[in-house]
């Protein structure tokens, strides 16, 4: 499986990543090399084998729905690149 520049552009866009012209040239080669190595996984017979999502075996870890006061609003909002009236400001979404 090769990742060519066009597929790379498509995936980069899905990942919301702008790539430099230099990366657009270099990444297809690097990624194709990696994919080539990864593909040896196809050799393993996984018929009837369930996938592993996590290794703890834990399920439905619950806690009581108790509200706790949050007190770091100032510190939290200080981190926003742009804010007004205690709200985060961003580009138009809709």
């Amino acid at each position, binding site marked *: 499986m090769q990742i060519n520049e066009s597929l790379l552009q498509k995936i980069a866009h899905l990942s919301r990543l702008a*790539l430099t012209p230099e990366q657009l040239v270099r990444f297809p080669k690097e990624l194709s090399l990696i994919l080539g190595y990864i593909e040896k996984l196809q050799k393993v017979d996984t018929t009837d*084998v369930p996938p592993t999502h996590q290794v*703890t075996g834990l399920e439905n870890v619950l806690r009581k729905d108790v509200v706790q006061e949050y007190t770091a609003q100032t510190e939290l909002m200080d981190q926003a690149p742009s804010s007004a009236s205690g709200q985060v400001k961003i580009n138009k979404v809709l």
Partner: protein
Amino acid sequence: MSIKELHQKLLAKEISSVDLTKQYLVKIKALNPKLNAFLTVSEEEALAQAVLADKIFAAGKATFLTGIPYALKDIFCTAGVRTTGASKILEQYIPPYSATVYEKLKAQGAVLLGKTNCDEFAMGASNENSAYGPVKNPLDHTRVAGGSSGGSAAAVAADLCVFALGTDTGGSIRDPASFCGITGLKVTYGRVSRSGVLSLASSLDTIGPLTKSVEDAALVLAAIAGKDDFDSTTPAIEVEDYAQLLVKDIKGMSIGLPKEYYIGLDPELKTQIDGQLEKLKEMGVQIKEVSLPLTEYAIPIYYIILPAEASSNLARYDGVNFGLNKPGKDLLEMYLATRGAGFGDEVKRRMILGTFVLSSGYQEAYYKQAQKVRTLMCEEFNQIFNEVDALITPTMPAPAFKLGEKMSNPLDMYLADIFTAPANLAGIPALSLPVLKKQGLPVGLQIIGPRFSEARILQIAKKLEVAE
């Protein structure tokens, strides 16, 4: 000096926490410019914590970790102290909250000296992927410190702190521990809370200690382990008194040597490992050769699952609520520009790989297949631990390589994880002990055990540890 020795000195008032902290701050000022182990030295915070530690001593409530200066890899959120993830996208980020393990160490009065350099978002095996420059190996400044917890390992090795915490997702504690000649422990997945630690791969990430000795690792582990309401992957399994348990005899234990880890191994290292095994036999330990045929698939599985999970975890760095923001004519442009500018090459490569293996048309062949082979690998380990109590392998195939040596082919760097990644996939603990040498440089010996067998691994390591 060990944690217990420092504790005695502090208890006996031979030195105060404040003076001990000042000593370390002076050392960091002198050595860090060369090593680049620390990204942030939190001097004010450190001294404030040291003052509190002295108060705890005065009140007679000190524990072994009270007043002990340590460092945290810069992916641990520390409220009020800059946390960069070694990335440009978080260059100015000051977290409004703290990682659970930081809170735990603070509660005991341990003193945070600062945040250590690492590979960007913990992606790497040499600490050359940091947006703030590589970390130099304290034993040879032309070589890498290892990664991704290179800064933590270098800081401990150069005695710029007494201990440090790192994370291990595919080998990121054990690899730099091996390269810098210190002890590094990868815990059972779920043993230590990941709350407040910048996520890389949620099914693989673990948090653990880098220390100068096995006993120190045991002491730190006991302080940070345990169930946490903020991390639902931490089971309610008892945290043992690991330091107390170190003295336990290992006679009668059986240790397996998985042959796949020894194929083509440097004969010098093999001879030294044989020497270590002789010591174990003299202690009444049984050694047997075993086989883990799926070992060769660990890297392919890992480099599908990790990028997939990372691509999802790093989606939050979008210039909206925190971190770098590069304006754009619309939301999409802002996302592309911010993430394009904020992430380094390796991070971008892995995110693209991850998005690809999860994408429609490819998910079955790549991601699902990787998850299935992972199941087989877990079963393989389960079966082997019915036969033996632990496994011994080299941690890395060779000592620290030169800076720049593996940067031209990403795949070369990925293969560094060859002996360490399997433990992460199976969620099992593994410790790297600095008892091997090649060309005068350290190489770690790896001890692997089944889930929640940290006590056992530490016991074996203690018996093999070379007395200072």
